[in-house]
């Protein structure tokens, strides 16, 4: 064998061993289990939050529905927007609700979301009719969409929750709002 062929063979062998040795070594460490070598390992952080209505509030001539939101997950969540409709038990739209300012929630924290309510005349009549029927509470469905920012992504999630609305309290708030 001449020198050129010898050099060629040696470089080829060295190249092959540089390329293959780490992979063979890795396979031997993982018990020759190829799946264990190529399967990704990932433990995603928990993303979880709970929303519950906490009541009505009148502030500077505006009516708000307050929601208590608890971040039970491991990442910061920012509520950037929330648009919802409130529906009566018979499916009638009572009011529209809108989040006026973004609310940031650190993991484990609880904050209040104040949704500004826009109540129409028809809805008022409907609510009054429930009161005239002697009902002091009705179950209100809140349905809409929440716009969140989670770890740099904008997320739009549907929202659905129910709320026991005290009619007396609600009408009293409305009377104060619309004297």
């Amino acid at each position: 064998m001449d020198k050129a062929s010898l050099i060629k063979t040696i470089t080829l062998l060295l190249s092959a061993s540089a390329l293959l040795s780490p992979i063979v070594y890795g396979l031997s460490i993982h018990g020759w289990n190829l799946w264990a070598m190529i399967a990704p390992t990932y433990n995603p952080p928990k993303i979880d939050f709970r929303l519950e209505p906490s009541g009505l509030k009148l502030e500077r001539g505006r009516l708000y529905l307050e929601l208590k939101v608890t971040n039970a997950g491991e990442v910061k969540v920012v509520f950037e927007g929330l648009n919802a409709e409130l529906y009566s038990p018979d499916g009638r739209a009572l009011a529209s609700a809108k989040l006026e300012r973004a609310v940031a929630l650190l993991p484990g924290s609880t904050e209040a979301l104040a949704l500004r309510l826009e109540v129409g005349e028809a809805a008022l009549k409907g609510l009054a009719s429930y009161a005239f029927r002697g009902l002091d509470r009705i179950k209100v469905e809140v349905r809409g969409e929440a716009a969140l920012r989670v770890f740099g992504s904008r997320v739009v999630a549907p929202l659905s929750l129910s709320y026991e609305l005290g009619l007396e309290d609600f009408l009293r708030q409305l009377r104060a709002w619309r004297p």
Partner: protein
Amino acid sequence: MTATRLLTLNHRLNVLGLISSALLLYTALSDRPWWTVYGGIGDERTFSADVSPFVVTVEVLGKPVTVPMLFYLNLAARLSVLLAAATTLLGSLLVKRPWSKHLMSLKGLALPVLFLAGLSISLNLAKTFAGVSIPLVGQSVVEFAMNYGGFRISAETPVTAALAQEYWVALTAGVLSALARAIHGRISQLRRATAL
């Protein structure tokens, strides 16, 4: 002929080979990424990936994604490029030996080309199978939807991707090593012509 004489210091050294082996050595020992991609708004990163043939770091929602095979593939790539740098250096110093041409490696050029090709194929596969459109270079918005707790949740993430300076250094090293090998071939031709 004059250029060949100049670049080999009158057939004593392969200057381009020396430069390319130095750049290959730097490339192989550097842990900096060749390609970076991140998704998110402001300082918040939904995901990020720093990729080079020698190190791959992927994080999703602040948590690392690990694939054991990648460590060994990265090690194989690093050893291969170190070997290429060493043989190119040796070949460049031993220009006068007729067998030194076989020491001039082209792996330095193959790696950046294969890296870019592999990246393009992977991004196309991600688009085809996962519907996630990540650019090779530039910005885009990745939109995806998922089912969570019986609800359909949609999400969008601005994505920025770029080839880093390290990639261009590696490509320069590769191109120089190819030129160095061509010069070596030219010297061999001249030597044979002189011998005849």
